[in-house]
């Protein structure tokens, strides 16, 4: 399962991480977010040691989504050394996410 990150833990867990981090901005009532859920959880396991996969609930945490201009969910943002490398929006496939990670040479 992907770990839940909050506004309070975002800097330490995401921006200061040694590994690249894939953040899934989601909400429990959002259908496409729910559709993407199992894909994110599977990736968290498959990419262990290469990419940290975490989730931010935008209902409970508003600063991190606002800071990164998240205006649609689900949005996936890939971070490395505190910088945004790439992002995707919508319920996308595992293959599409892996292609993004490969393009940015993180997995």
């Amino acid at each position, binding site marked *: 399962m992907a770990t839940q990150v909050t506004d309070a833990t975002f800097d330490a867990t995401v921006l200061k991480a040694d590994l690249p981090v894939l953040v899934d901005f989601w909400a429990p009532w*959002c*259908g496409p977010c729910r559709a993407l859920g*199992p*894909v994110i959880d599977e990736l968290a396991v498959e990419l262990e040691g290469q990419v940290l996969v975490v989730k931010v609930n935008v209902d409970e945490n508003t600063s991190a989504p606002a800071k990164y*201009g998240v205006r*649609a*969910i689900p949005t996936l943002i890939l971070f490395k050394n505190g910088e945004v490398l790439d992002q995707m929006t919508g319920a996308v*496939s*595992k*293959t599409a996410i892996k292609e993004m990670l490969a393009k940015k040479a993180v997995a």
Partner: protein
Amino acid sequence: MSVYDSLIIGGGPAGMTAALYMLRSGKNVAVVEKLAPGGQLLKTAHIENYPGFVKPVGGFELADAITEQLMQYPHERITDEVAAITQESGLYLVRVGERTLTAKTVIVCSGARYKHLGVPGEERLIGKGISFCALCDGNFFRGQTVGVVGGGDAALEESLYLSNIVGKIHLIHRRSTFRGSRIFEDKVRETANIALELNTVVAEVQGENEVSGALLKDVHTGETRFLPLQGLFVFIGFDPEGDFLPAGLERDKSGFIITDCEMRTNLPGFFAAGDIRSKMCRQVATAVGDGATAAQAAYTYLETLHG
């Protein structure tokens, strides 16, 4: 390598029903779904026209119930995307991620996806002000000015939903009349913060890192004007989810699969069910009916293979 009796592509209502019927007939089945099971059910808040539910049933709830029922019957489930389908010695080879699966029959239930506008600025600004889901993203535009594009039920219903959240809505529609239900249209016309921009299309979406507005074009005069907006919600219909479909499969002008009333396509052993089919009525109830019919047709086809 094992050969499936039936490979079902898509885990929405049509695919899950087809799988249920095949499994109950004792067939060996795999279901390929790129996301969680449920398909468009997961994007639907409430369903009021599915028989058997007196009170509106939540899309999630119905998806979970069908999934739970299906999981009683052992079968393989693959969470990934189909890349291509080819035929070899009477079998179908289906490439999924890095694997190639072999099946005697294929039932395609891959559904439909939101149609994009196809105008400059759109792809770049999806998720940065452009949305295809009012329920998901409405809250990000609380008190702001947004556009809604479309003239069917979806555009009207989503405008009504958004009217309670956002400050102002411009409903942009290329015709002077709406295709959607009268009941929604009347409500839209009565809603104070919805302005109608009729005979108008979006020519371009503008904005650097987020939507700043849309360039609107009058379809009669060709005149353009800039409308400042913080968000743009697009509900202009669906395209078939069928990039992987084999060459030689008969499809209609819009790319939906042509079948007979038993869900058979022009390719032997290849069936289609649900929204991916060329048809008029796309509902949960019809998807479920298609799925059951396709499974029965596939079962009959498998029987003929054994002579």
